[in-house]
């Protein structure tokens, strides 16, 4: 794992823990857990995450990217953001 990826991961984890789970307990969030299954995100939750990612990592998320394979888990988000930043 590159240091970039681990930075992206820790940023995303911290954001979700703080703003959607309201906790600082790292064990509350598994990287491969479906956020939908866990009831962590719904439509506005996903929009919040996307806004955070756009701002934090200076990427642009298109409407057509709004898919579970990009945003339904920490792993998926890390993959998406890594790809998007590499493409820039």
């Amino acid at each position: 794992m590159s240091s970039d990826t681990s930075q992206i991961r820790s940023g995303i984890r911290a954001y979700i823990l703080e703003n959607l789970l309201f906790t600082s307990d790292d064990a509350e969030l598994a990287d491969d857990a479906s956020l939908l299954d866990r009831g962590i995100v719904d439509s506005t939750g996903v929009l919040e995450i996307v806004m955070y990612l756009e701002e934090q990592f200076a990427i642009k998320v298109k409407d057509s990217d709004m898919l579970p394979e990009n945003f339904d888990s920490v792993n998926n988000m890390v993959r998406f953001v890594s790809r998007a930043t590499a493409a820039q």
Partner: protein
Amino acid sequence: MTPRVERLLHDGLLIAAADSVRAGKAAVIVEGQPHTYAELLRDALRLAAAMRERGVRRGDRVAIYMDNTWPCVVSIYAALIAGGVFLIVNPQTKADKLAFILEDSGAKLLLSDGHLSKEFRAALGQMRQPPAVICSGAINDATDAEAFDAVLAASSPAAPETSTIPLDLAALIYTSGSTGNPKGVMQTHQAMVFTTGSLIEYLRLDASEKILCALPLAFDYGLYQLLMSVKLGATLVLERSFTFPAQVFARMHETGVTVFPGVPTVFAMLLAAHGRSALSFPSVTRVTNTAAALPDEFATRLREVFPNALIYKMYGLTECKRVAYLEPELIDAKPGSVGKAIPGTEVFLLSPEGNDVAPGETGILHVRGPHVMAGYWNRPDLSAEMLKPGRLPGERVLCTQDHFRMDADGFLYFVGRSDDIIKTRGEKVSPAEVENVIHGIEGVREVAVVGVADSLLGQAIRAFVVPVAGADINEKRIRAECAARLENFMVPRDIVFCADLPKTATGKVSKKALLENPPAGVEA
């Protein structure tokens, strides 16, 4: 075994599956995966047999706490075929409320999904007599829940319960109440069969439809998309939610969806997306809106996205499913109106004293028809507030408690609610339910929850919190408690700490004053 007349809610399925053409047609496409009518009946008969083996008898309640999945659809029809009464609990529901609903309904059996086990396990732990559990998907933890697939595989199809008559209950539909605890709206087979037919009639639907359902099946608006589709022998395109809009849009194109049911928040998101990059769904011929008023300017812009669709503005409440709809051809002629009573029913306005109201004047909306609920489960007191004696002996008319006015042509216009229920994202939220959770947090002295106007949500939830002097309380802790105990849409968007709340002469918190003249926020 195939009924010749459709009297019970599941008769539509029995009829469709017995028809040689429809049996092989897709009844439901769940996240892209088609399931035929023959398959739906086969699995429902098997699960019904398993339910009966596990003690479900005529009139027993069967709780379904599931996402919009194939097992959820099968469970609904299985419960009916077994002679039971189904109730669907929103999968966002947390343990305490789930336990309340299970206790209140006296459910004999709970069907759920593996990924919801944390909540349902906690709920069952609170109960003295927890129901048996059948669980779809992965069951990770040590448990006595049975696996849905294994139960189906081990069961052979049983004949439907024959003693059920149309006056028996088919469903309890739980809805938020102003007292805080949800109430189970009792609906009979007869009422639900009637209502399904009425909706199909005015929406002008037929067997060729592909009806989208991305609304929760726990919400009666979502549930009726399934009921209409099965009654028609049409196809339901079932999606888990609108959370990932691109996925829903792709599925709509792929399956050629013809009916698009939404609430204003969904349409607001859709129009915002359309503004960024043009969307067009030419296959859609009907767009429906209910749960909150559709702004008139939305209707105009929705025609760009749905160039071939009739747009229906509707109004209803769970207690009778739907009250009124506006003929789509009149959308420009009658701006702001939700139209007239649905086919086979009537509406009238009365003053608080029970007198007729002149055209143009505000009155309380009353509803008469076979769609009116039988009452609230276990709550004759609350039933009596909503159901009033009608003109005929024994008849009961629904007093909606909502204020409306009617123009000279008989078209209805919503004026306001008489209770303080908040409508956010099309969901009803009881301020008392949110207040109870916040009040239970240490360091909170007083709390009042109100709805404030919001262009995306309809109303946003705002909590005014008075902390105990010197208490260690902050916004994050309040949010965390709310998120742990309430459905996502009930978590307040705004939390305002203040030194005091405005009161009425009798010492009650004045919500009116809170909205008109909010107290200054202070640091907690």
